[in-house]
């Protein structure tokens, strides 16, 4: 009887591997779930892209939910995400804040001019220091921050119509329901 132990242990292993293969098709192995979901967004103060005299802070954006979309002109996948933002951004009904990450302001402005600007506001984090507080490790990434400044949802990778429909919109709806 105990002789069957190795066989059953192996069966368990196969189940694990089968799961692994399946999981792999649905997820990116490199996706790191954010520990900030449900926590207050970090305090920040960043200049507006192209207008360094003006700065925007977390306090300035309190009161209404907004999407913070991390992008850069150097980022290939951001180029893939961009048309989706142009098409569906306004329809979401929330403020869309562009977070220009580790980019040269001139390059970023040129990129937006060439591809279109879906953002209500673009702030620039040239050094990437504040992004670290957000737990950003690549682009594109998108944060949904509610009116109280709490991060409610994070998307790692480009926004697709599918993700918007099945993940972002429900998250937005949830926030809307909570409003007095």
């Amino acid at each position: 009887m105990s002789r069957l132990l190795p066989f059953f242990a192996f069966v368990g292993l196969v189940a694990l591997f089968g799961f692994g293969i399946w999981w792999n098709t649905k997820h990116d192995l490199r996706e790191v779930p954010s520990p900030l979901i449900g926590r207050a967004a970090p305090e920040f103060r960043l200049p507006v892209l192209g207008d360094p005299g003006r700065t925007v802070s977390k306090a300035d954006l309190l009161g209404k939910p907004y999407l913070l979309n991390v992008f850069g002109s150097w980022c290939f996948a951001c180029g893939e995400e961009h048309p989706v933002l142009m098409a569906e951004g306004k329809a979401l009904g929330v403020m869309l804040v562009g977070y220009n990450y580790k980019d040269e302001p001139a390059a970023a402005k040129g990129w937006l001019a060439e591809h279109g600007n879906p953002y209500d506001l673009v702030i620039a984090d040239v050094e990437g220091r504040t992004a670290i507080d957000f737990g950003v490790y690549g682009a594109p990434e998108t944060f949904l921050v509610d009116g109280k400044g709490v991060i409610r949802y994070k998307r790692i990778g480009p926004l697709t119509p599918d993700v918007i429909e099945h993940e972002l919109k429900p998250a937005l709806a949830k926030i809307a329901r909570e409003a007095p």
Partner: protein
Amino acid sequence: MMRRVVLLLVLLVATTVAAQAIDPLPFKDHAQEVRFQHLTAQLRCLVCQNESLNDSNADLARDLRHEVFDLMQQGKSDQQIKDWMVARYSKFVLYDPPLDAGTALLWFGPLLVLVLGGVALVVQVRRRARAAATEPASAVTESNDSGENW
């Protein structure tokens, strides 16, 4: 699709000649540098396949190394620095898995295997020893093959 995208991202970063793991920083003394090396060796580079902050050429790795350096200059302890990283990037960033309910299996699993195996070993050895006790000593050590029992 996503994987290809991230891979391209990584390639883009990896071929950027600007960033480098070799990154002289103004340490107070060698002891501080050693502490920095040990600490960054335990932190994971999140955009790499499987490298520590100490070894990675990625931009993000360099940024995070500078964060660690700044935090060290501020007088933070190793644990505080690790907590700082975990607060932003989750415990995935630690190569030393913390001991908690989720990792109990990981840390105690080998012990369990050792104990169960040890029990099986003891049972087996005692059974054999009992059999050996009933045989004359010379028969027990008698060689089976043509060689000597060395």
